[in-house]
């Protein structure tokens, strides 16, 4: 359980920073960037409490 939560947290951190990088390089639009950042944010706060600071 903890390993899965850690993996989701790691992916969601990547999902927080990758969309802005892709927007910077012109591969995705701003609206898509905002949506992916929100999805990553929700995933981070859903998964991280299971393993961090417990």
């Amino acid at each position, binding site marked *: 359980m903890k390993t899965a939560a850690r993996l989701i947290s790691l992916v969601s951190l990547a999902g*927080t920073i990758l969309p802005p990088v892709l*927007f*910077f390089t012109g591969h995705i639009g701003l609206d898509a960037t*905002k949506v992916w950042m929100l999805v990553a*944010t929700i995933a981070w*706060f859903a998964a*991280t409490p299971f393993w961090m600071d417990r």
Partner: protein
Amino acid sequence: MADDTRTPQTEPVDEYEREKVPPRAWLGFSSFVGQYAGEHTAGTELMIGPLFIASGVTAVDVVGGLFVGNLLAVLSWVFLTAPIAVRARLTLYFQLEKICGRKLVTVYNLANGVMFCFLAGAMVTVNATAAGVWLHIAMPGLNDLYPNSAGWVATVLVMGLLMTVVAAYGYKVVARIANIAAPWMVLVFIAYGIIGARQLGIDSVSTFWPKAQELIWTGGLPLAGRAKFTFWHVMFFAWFCNMAMHIGMADLSVFRYARKSWYAVSSAAGMYLGHFIAWLAASILYAQQLHATPGNTAVLPGPLAYNAAGIAGVMCVIVAGWTTANPTIYRAGLAFQAISPSSSRYRVTLMTGALATIAGMFPAIAMKLLDFVALYGLVLMPMGAVVFVDFWLAKRCAFQSNYAEVSGTDINWAAGLAWVLTVAGCLAIVNMGGLQIYFVGLPGWFAAATLYIVLSRLLQRKEVRL
């Protein structure tokens, strides 16, 4: 209402407040890295970055000034604060009590509490701008000093009261959210900068620097009502914005838990993530706003973050503001409670939060945050000089260290006068236009140290003196 006499589960535990931290409680290096990275990536960083642009800095001045100033801040923690912290292993308040006496520490606590209250007020202001994104209220402009709409007052009131109640009853929950949110927050702050740069038309790393000089930190005249900033303004601001913590010695309370004094290099995590990357990223967002809507000079973190990163961006503002306002309101409450120890900590925290909420309604504090932060450090700095001199130089200068403890006095007048005269002298110089507030801290520290030595030699009773 909670029972005032018991220790509630939701309160943080303040350990070893009146004794040395024992070796079993010492902490490793990584504990401090996380703490500093989280604490210095706050909602108010989104106010400070734009205010540099409003002050007309150039790219070289802001990047160079922040790099050097933050380095000096880290070195101050490493060479001034931590060596005393790991030798004495006492809180600042207990160490000050030994030097200054109970009554003088009470006055210091009052000054500390008031400053924390106003700082928390600025954090409430920042969060209200985030709520304002959805509420479509009239928000304050760059030069507004007073509340400008009923909607603004109501929004600040609701945000402030929520933060206050949580600080009083749910401290640990928010402290846990702060730890969990820290890595995500840092990345969202970086994302602000990347997105803002692209919105300004910067599309490659190689063109960033020339375009930054042309579009972001262009130099030139500051906005109306702002002082022109140079390299020296930025450097001294970056160095001294946490003056209360390093030179002012407040972080003795933090590093008394460190195994080694060099652990203070962990403060670099806070300085270079929060006070370098986050400030520059916030600057970029503001430059983009000025570029897209040239007449819109308002520094409103909520809308700035929403335009760049949408709902996730606004969430970051709220979480960053809330998680730093939480301990700030709590610490202000502790400082006030020390004046009246029999008062309920809940009631004191609630009253402190109410004061911070009222302060947050006045945008003057947030819009003049650079000046306020400089003042905050200046007011508390002289006591840091007193601690430094008392610890290292008392014997060499032939006066008694920990004079209040040894003599049994409630007020060490040498420390009190060194504090008051230094602050009064620095503020007089600023008011007469001799120096701007960012520059008086350094000579002020030497003035406080010299005054404390001279006054101790003059005022200490001979039978107590060495």
